[in-house]
């Protein structure tokens, strides 16, 4: 009967029969993308922060310098390996490798979160490092000049500015992850793309199902990028500011003094 329908009728038919499956698949895709991007950002920030710890030959002890050098070398390897190989291969490698080599039986979900997170982390590490380096060095000097330690300066001054600089990158990664979780179907994650493969396999409606899936992916990414733009604008704050009445401040001071 489906062979007698036209394109639109087929789409309606598929949606009636499998609409909830598509929505569930889209939900899975979104959850994996959001959670993994979040974890990936945390990994990226940690790696980026460690990689920008200044080393002073004169002031830092030898063990500390060696430790930092080793950690940095390992982090470089991590970044290069996960940036330099396809995620679809990483998924298979980790899912089967964990069970065969380490005898750890990872669930599909755990593997999915793990693969996408560390993949995102590798990309974010470079973005974070770049974001930190691109903050004017004068900001760090200003912070040090009022007595802040490197850690205090990073937390209060540098990272907030670096975060704003790399927010577009984070958004980019989130959108890439929404699309690229489709490769996780190789480890049988039932995401949007997996639903598409099942439906089109059952009904032989590749074009119609692909159309539906295209629309759903595009909707998710468009909404995401719009929300991220709103967030960026919010972080930039108001272009205007209120002048405060000097007398007002004086009276505030007076009150505080009177109370204290």
């Amino acid at each position, binding site marked *: 009967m489906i062979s007698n329908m036209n394109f639109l009728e087929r789409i309606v038919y598929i949606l009636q029969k499998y609409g909830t499956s598509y929505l569930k698949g889209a939900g899975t895709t979104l959850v994996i993308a959001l959670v993994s991007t979040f974890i990936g950002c945390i990994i990226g920030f940690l790696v980026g922060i460690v990689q920008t710890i200044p080393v002073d030959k004169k002031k830092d002890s030898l063990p500390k310098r060696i430790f930092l050098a080793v950690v940095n070398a390992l982090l470089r390897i991590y970044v290069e390996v996960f940036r330099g190989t396809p995620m679809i291969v990483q998924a298979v490698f980790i899912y089967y490798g964990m069970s065969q080599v380490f005898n750890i039986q990872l669930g599909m979900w755990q593997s999915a979160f793990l693969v996408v997170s560390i993949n995102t982390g590798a990309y974010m590490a470079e973005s974070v490092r770049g974001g930190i380096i691109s903050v004017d060095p004068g900001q760090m000097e200003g912070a040090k000049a009022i007595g802040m330690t490197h850690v205090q300066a990073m937390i*209060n001054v540098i990272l907030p500015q670096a975060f704003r600089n790399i927010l577009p990158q984070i958004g980019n990664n989130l959108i890439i992850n929404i699309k690229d979780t489709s490769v996780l179907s190789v480890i049988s994650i039932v995401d949007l793309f997996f639903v598409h493969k099942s439906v089109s396999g059952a009904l032989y409606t590749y074009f119609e199902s692909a159309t539906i899936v295209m629309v759903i992916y595009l909707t998710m990414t468009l909404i995401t990028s719009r929300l991220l733009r709103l967030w960026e604008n919010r972080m930039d704050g108001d272009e205007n500011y*209120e002048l405060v009445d000097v007398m007002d401040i004086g009276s505030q001071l007076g009150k505080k003094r009177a109370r204290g």
Partner: protein
Amino acid sequence: MCTENVILEVSHLKKNFGNHEVLKDIDFKVHTGDVVSVIGASGSGKSTMLRCINLLETSTGGSILYHGEDITNPKIDAPSYRAKVGMVFQNFNLFNNMTVLENCMVGQIKVAKKSKAQAREKALQFLQKVGMSAYVNAKPRQLSGGQKQRVAIARALAMDPEILLFDEPTSALDPQMVGEVLEVMTTLAGEGLTMIVVTHEMAFARDISSHVIFMAEGCIREEGTPKQIFEEPKEAETREFLARFRNV
């Protein structure tokens, strides 16, 4: 200058960048209440010397004694030393992610461990002093250069520094903004704040400072009272340098 109450004693200070000797052999003392102006041509090492004093550059030789303690020792707790020695930069270096008020509070809260209310009161007090209290809610990018520099001075003052270092505080400013910053600095000098000022403002150095240091090629060529340096310079180099500013 009296001999007691020495805050800072710089002796045989050296600084190399690679094989380039920027500071050769710097000796001088700063006493409580001194306003020391450091003048000299660009590239004579003035700023580098100031940055060495605040440990933003690591000196390669000599010593800097702060109340008798050598702060060039690598073991020194640099952050707590810097909290007592304020610095005002040529490019302001206000924190771009904070408002004017937050700029003046963050050091007090995070470094001096004061309560928010205390920090706020003190920040407002110094912002009022530099005439910037109306702008507490503004972000640095919304201010003019002169305004930024006055906020930077308030930020440094809010830490209760024992000595304040100025690294060419007016060099990045338009001529009409130089005055407002110098006015604030003159007030501070009048109140007895100990200051080291690297400057190209000869009138300020002559009228406000208690001691003037003339630097050339990484050395102190001549030093003395403003009267000695500006009216009776002994060295030919000093006279030559000052001649270029005579019309000021």
